[in-house]
């Protein structure tokens, strides 16, 4: 079991979700509105003539838990759908996952995903 954390541009969320559903690899995910910076750096906002550097940009974090065999497929879909080719497209992080438990039934492991 692996956990995928993908940080993507907010306006790419719908495309990524659609892609993952079409590929039939997910039956659930967690989405969070986050802020952060990487190579894209911040941007400038001007209020009454004064410039402010907005360091943290709004991004979306998608968290998905998958069985090992589906991970590469999922990465492929996210790469394809979330990419614009410009800096700031985001990152994908893969974690080994120790266990998963469905609270309603107490099922564990891949049955719980």
């Amino acid at each position: 079991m692996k956990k995928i954390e993908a940080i993507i541009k907010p306006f790419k969320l719908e495309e990524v979700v659609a892609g993952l559903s079409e590929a039939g690899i997910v039956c659930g995910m967690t989405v969070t509105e986050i802020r952060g910076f990487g190579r894209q750096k911040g941007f400038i906002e001007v209020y009454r003539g004064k410039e402010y550097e907005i360091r943290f940009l709004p991004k979306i974090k998608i968290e998905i838990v998958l069985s090992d065999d589906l991970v590469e497929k999922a990465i492929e879909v996210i790469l394809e759908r979330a990419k614009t080719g410009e800096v700031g497209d985001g990152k994908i992080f893969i974690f080994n996952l120790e266990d998963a438990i469905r609270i309603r039934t107490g099922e564990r492991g891949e049955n719980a995903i």
Partner: protein
Amino acid sequence: MVGTKINIKRRINMRKEEIKIKVLIILIVLLSLFYIGSFALAQEQGQVTPSSQIIAEATESTSQEIKIDTGDTAWMIVATALVMLMTLPGLALFYGGLSKRKDTLNTMTMSFIAYCVTSIIWIIYGYTLSFGPDISGIIGAPIKLFLKGVSVKSVAEAAKSIPEYIFIVFQLTFAAITLALVSGAYIERLKFTAWLIFSILWVSFVYLPICHWVWGGGFIGNLGVLDFAGGTVVHINAGIAALIGALIIGKRKDTTFIPHNLTMVLTGTGLLWFGWFGFNAGSALSSGGLAGVAFINTNTATALAALSWLFTEWIFSKKPTLLGLCSGAVAGLVAITPAAGFVNITGTLVIGLLAGIIPFFAVTKMKPFFGYDDTLDVFGIHGIAGILGAILTGIFADPEINELGRGLLYGNPFQLYKQIIGISVTIAYSGIMTLIILLITKFLTGLKAHVNDELIGLDESQHGQKAYNLHI
């Protein structure tokens, strides 16, 4: 250990708070004693002073000729309610949206409390000190304390076609918004107790005299200074008090100005503009053509100032913004205020155009140059646009619009000189008195919130609440 330390600190803070509250109570008691005393004194004087008897007789003898005009009365009731709307919720939303998310409630509370405090002061001694019978051009006589002598049949000297009660509330709403305007420069670091004490003192010792001098039969008005709806009394006065306060209270730790909610700012601006029709057209104190010209001038100058600010910022800051439109609109409203019932449409257009440009540079260039922390640019917008409007009134006042005003362009260069005297006196008096009041308030409360209280936000540190609890 750490826990107990925090507890001890908290206890010390609470002790300090208790002392402050006691000081506040003592102050309020002293003030009320003072005014009850002067009330009694005034009653005695009323029996012996011949001048006030003459006034009383005069009002009696004319009372038969006085005819309340229903049209004027209806309009003035509406206008009064419109001006009230400017403070609550207009200015509260405007300032609240411009403030930081963590200081929104505090900012809005300052406007709210300003309105309430002024409302009470006004009926106790505010009205009579500003509009009571003139005492040597300086202050109104305290013969109408607690509105003594005002009846459903009485009228004010300045507005004989409407009931005095309406005139009283109309003038009250002006005093309230002037005080509320000042708060914009002080927000995000001023203790709430400090604002409360400042409010009482400032309305009493700054607004009331200036209001009397200009509108209540005092020396500025007698000199022939033109101020249709409050350029000097309201805006220059508030602007200077804002600047002095920004200097005395000192800078915030975080001087960022990023409005936390521009949609609120727009709502506030709209309500200010809407309410300002009552403010300016209502200052005709009647429902006729003068109200009409003030109305159209107000709208025209405001629209043009919003546009000229937008285009100025488009050139100098590269982007046209909603904040620019709102700032320009308010600057336009301020600048046209003293001129609304004196100038023709050409004058209005010049005033509107300049009101979007000069305050823009006051805010974007002058403030950073001098480095004072006028949080929401009360001096840059109200002070500067107020001075601009007062000067331009002296240039563009057209006797065909209003026979009381003849400006430089209509053959009376002396008017400009008078306007400058009016502006200078207001700046000097408001500046010095505000300074003294701030020093007294500093002695009593320390003025500035502790830096930690400022950083967690005044909403939480002063009021124990938050404006946004979206996760609950």
